[in-house]
């Protein structure tokens, strides 16, 4: 049976893992290569490294960070953040990424999805979408540039377009829930998952075990991504999987 994936996400700035709350207030959380290996060993089904560096200088270290991280990581490894062109993607793939994640650049030029998919296959292209509720209703707008700018686009409509352009998965972040630990936005996730034929990774708001049970059962998520709950206590990951299993969610456990 295909299992639900638990994906560890490492936000990286200038070669260090950091964790922010609702896109602000960064805290240092360690070395990417060490943390990626630790997460894999603890039972993470995949590792995502998101480069959130604001400056070109900080971003220059990315290829080195990716290469070091990929060296001893034998689970799927995705890299995102700051990839604006096919050339940027090639650098990251050649450093050892299995998949890339693109966000703002895909919205600016949707054909970029197709160009990368034609070269590396759709399974290697994740389109990340930052979505925010409109007036608290069940309508969601896509944002870009790390959540700073509105697009005026419906997030689910954009996800469908990204699928049509060749995306292999959608990484869907609820900006309202990100970093709060208040639970995933199941309504957002379910709306998107039911509208698409490709897998949807839920992100933003993962906290206790129940929040993961909810996003898999009610949110119809294919995978769930979380960061801060894993950085400060890796034992959480194994416990989470065992508890999910007890709740009847198919997971890869023991690993």
């Amino acid at each position, binding site marked *: 049976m*295909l299992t639900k994936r638990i994906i560890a996400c490492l936000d990286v700035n200038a070669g260090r893992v950091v964790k922010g709350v609702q896109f602000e207030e960064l805290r240092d959380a360690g070395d990417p290569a060490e943390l990626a290996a630790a997460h894999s060993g603890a039972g993470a089904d995949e590792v995502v490294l998101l480069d959130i560096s604001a400056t070109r200088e900080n971003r220059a270290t990315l290829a080195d960070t990716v290469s070091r991280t990929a060296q001893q990581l034998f*689970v799927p490894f995705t890299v995102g953040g700051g990839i604006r062109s096919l050339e940027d993607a090639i650098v990251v793939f050649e450093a050892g990424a299995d998949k890339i994640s693109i966000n703002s650049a895909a919205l600016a030029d949707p054909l970029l999805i197709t160009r990368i998919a034609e070269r*590396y296959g759709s399974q290697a292209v994740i389109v990340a979408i930052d979505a925010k509720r409109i007036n608290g209703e069940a309508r969601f707008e896509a944002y870009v540039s790390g959540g700073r700018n509105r697009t005026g686009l419906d997030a689910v409509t954009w996800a469908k377009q990204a699928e049509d352009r060749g995306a292999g998965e959608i990484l869907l972040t609820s900006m309202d829930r990100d970093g709060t630990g208040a639970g995933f936005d199941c309504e957002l996730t379910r709306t998107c998952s039911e509208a698409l034929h490709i897998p949807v990774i839920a992100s933003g708001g993962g906290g206790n075990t129940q929040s993961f049970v909810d996003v898999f059962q009610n949110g119809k998520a*294919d995978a769930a991504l979380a960061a801060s709950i894993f950085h400060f206590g890796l034992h959480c990951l194994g416990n989470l999987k065992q508890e999910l299993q007890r709740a009847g969610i198919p997971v890869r456990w023991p690993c």
Partner: protein
Amino acid sequence: MIAVIDYRAGNIASVKKALDYLRADAVVTRDPNIVAQADKIILPGVGHFSATAVLERDGVRGAILHRIENGGVPFLGVCVGMQWMFESSAEAPGTPGLGLLPGECGPFAETVKSPHVGWNSLICRDSSRLLRGIPSGSFVYFTHSYSAPIVNATAASCEYGGEFSAAVEQDNLFGVQFHPEKSGELGLRLLANFCNLPC
């Protein structure tokens, strides 16, 4: 020496990285002369079935067939590399496979999402050399939109909108639909099993 065939598609590097980790003597190549001398051949691959057409053009297809036919050296096809062992694929009707195994690869049932992405469990048949130490129920990582039919050579199957071949094994010919280089410890064990086969 293990020749890892490079057909300019997908992520050949991750297979090489796993072989390096296992301290196997592996070379990434598309030179027919190197293939002709290889003790073992691995055809990795993610991407499109038609990407294998480049092997025809470079003369690698003939070199591989010559080296592995009639009980030749061990061959391992991974993902599209395994699908290529069959006669054809609905993904690329004009592109012939190696035809080492009967049948055509096809898309998944409409009832499930495609691609099939993630960790799914194996249903193993007995006495596979490739799957030694990898019991039924083991989870491995898949990412693919087409799959191969169940055949006599099927060593392990997987269920996703129907049953398909997850691993095949026949004499010196081996194939896996999943990615051993991305399947954690069990995947590394499978690659080690292949590396340790007598030539």
